[in-house]
């Protein structure tokens, strides 16, 4: 892989041992990918603070510097970790103080994460603590090269914002933060950004639930490829595309899609395919829609719902407002908990606008930083949960061994208030 003189200097230690280790990792990674060179980036979204047993052991052995060296740079030497070279944010991580005592999640992990936050924020990491950095001020512009993790954020950045990123990992983002470089490969190259598949909706796709179901179908069909989606599509909003993209990256590995006329890179179908002829469309009709619904609900048998989870990916302020509206003057079923996960910055706005008060008065909670899947913890005794998120319905049964119901927001609120799942495909 070609390195500029500046990159060679970084590799050879001119900017210190940590930067040299970071460049060494990027060279190994770029060579393995078959990249020709690196590209500059000034926007990194990664993870450093999320507790894990392995990270805890490294921290006890040699502090956060050791944990960063091993996990984020794949380096076993004792090195000092300098200030991040380019703007870097922490994505979602474990539960924070606001969730203390609500689950079996250990207080030690919350404490460990707090310690990590202090260390990394001193080195210039912005603790956004969300899977949706684009909701709280980190909005790369069209064409910008970024280095992001979190599959739902990656697909949003590439598709909705028109920025360019691969689905990076903890070590590649750790190295990018200290060098401002990432391999120029995959989604960074213009020729790799055209659609490969065409999916046509023959049934109306409009609203949060429908966009999530459609995304789950698209991901399952195209796997890691790049779909353009057309057909009977309503005007999506931020939450709809947040749900759609997360679902495509759950049933498949979609990192980039086009909705001609909606997403910025593809004003029309021709542009989505880069002037090449579009292939025969994969059709999403009534039967396919029913199949998605049944698949997402295949992990449910008991209708006694003891947990409702909303906000995956983290809820927008608009979603929180709707939840509050539906819960006004109502009270949750005695045996059922309701959590709304959101970035802490939006929680502040929800507090200010009274939404948190309404949700809390009904018996629900607005929580931040994490989710039950990331922290592997739900309210004690949870056997059956309901959610409006295709992604959470897909993952949580495997992670926690519980049953899942997937439906519309009003059905989830109904389950929270009655303790019973009464949803169905409408």
């Amino acid at each position, binding site marked *: 892989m070609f390195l500029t003189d500046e990159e060679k200097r970084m590799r050879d230690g001119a900017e210190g041992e940590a930067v040299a280790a970071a460049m060494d*990792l990027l060279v*190994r*990674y770029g*060579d*393995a*990918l*078959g990249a020709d060179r690196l590209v500059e980036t000034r926007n990194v979204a990664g*993870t450093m603070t999320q507790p*894990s*047993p*392995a990270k805890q*052991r*490294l921290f006890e052995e040699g502090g956060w510097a050791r944990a960063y060296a*091993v*996990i984020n740079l*794949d380096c076993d030497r004792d090195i000092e970790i300098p200030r991040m070279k380019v703007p870097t944010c922490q994505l979602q991580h474990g539960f924070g103080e606001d969730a203390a005592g609500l689950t079996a999640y250990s207080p030690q992990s919350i404490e460990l994460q707090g310690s990590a936050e202090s260390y990394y924020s001193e080195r210039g990491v912005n603790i956004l603590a969300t899977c949706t950095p684009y909701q709280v001020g980190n909005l790369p512009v069209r064409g910008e090269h970024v280095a992001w*993790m*979190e*599959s739902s954020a*990656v697909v949003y950045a590439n598709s909705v914002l028109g920025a360019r990123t*691969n*689905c*990076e*990992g*903890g*070590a*590649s983002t750790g190295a990018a933060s200290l060098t401002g470089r990432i391999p120029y*490969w*995959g989604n960074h190259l213009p020729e790799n950004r055209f659609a490969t598949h065409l999916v046509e909706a023959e049934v109306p796709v409009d609203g949060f639930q429908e966009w999530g179901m459609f995304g789950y179908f698209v991901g399952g069909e195209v*796997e*890691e490829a790049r779909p353009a989606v057309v057909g009977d599509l309503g005007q999506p909003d931020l939450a709809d595309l947040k749900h759609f993209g997360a679902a495509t*990256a*759950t049933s*498949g*590995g979609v990192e980039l899609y086009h909705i001609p006329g909606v997403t910025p890179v593809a004003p029309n179908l021709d542009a989505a395919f880069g002037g090449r002829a579009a292939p025969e469309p994969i059709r999403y009709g009534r039967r396919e829609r029913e199949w998605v619904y049944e698949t997402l609900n295949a992990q449910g048998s008991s209708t006694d719902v003891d947990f409702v989870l909303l906000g995956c990916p983290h809820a927008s302020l608009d979603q929180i407002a709707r939840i509050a509206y539906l819960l006004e003057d109502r009270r949750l079923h005695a045996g059922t908990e309701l959590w709304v996960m959101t970035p802490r910055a939006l929680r502040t706005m929800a507090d200010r606008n009274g939404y948190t008060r309404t949700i809390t008065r009904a018996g629900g909670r607005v929580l931040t930083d994490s989710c039950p*899947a990331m922290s592997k913890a739900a309210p004690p005794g949870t056997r059956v949960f309901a959610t409006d998120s295709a992604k959470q319905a*897909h*993952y949580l*049964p*495997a*992670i926690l061994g519980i049953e899942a119901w997937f439906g519309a927001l009003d059905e989830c609120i109904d389950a929270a208030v009655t303790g019973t799942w009464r949803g169905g495909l409408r």
Partner: protein
Amino acid sequence: MSVGEPGRAAAAVLELRGRGIVPGVVEAEALVTHDSISGFGGIDVATGTVIEPRHELFGQCFTGRVLVFPGAKGSSGWSGFFQSTRLMGTAPAAMVFNVLTTKAVLGAIVTRVPTVVEVAPDPLEAIRTGDLVRVDGDAGIVTILRRATSATASASA
């Protein structure tokens, strides 16, 4: 390619050529799947076991075996999960895969096990679970040293 006579273990049964992306040489039994593997929600790092329901390898342990799989799917935490198997002592002995993604490539690097990619003939067809294979990450060669007997294949399948 020549296929060794049944019952003779001395000569290599089959040699597959690809590109080594993580150096090192290891010999171990293969664990083969046609399903892509997920990190987050897909494996348990404490036990080195596949935990995704409906996965072909559900409940099976890859620790110390040559993991032969199409590629990575799911969350961007993939590399971190496999890195954790290294730190917890539950990592596979080597990796062989053909679908090149950032997730799988970075995962192989931070797991630090010999890894060969872009292998021909198709390793998913050529290698069977229980086969003894040598993965040479320096030369980019995967060698089937001995075919699984029906007993070892069924025990590990």
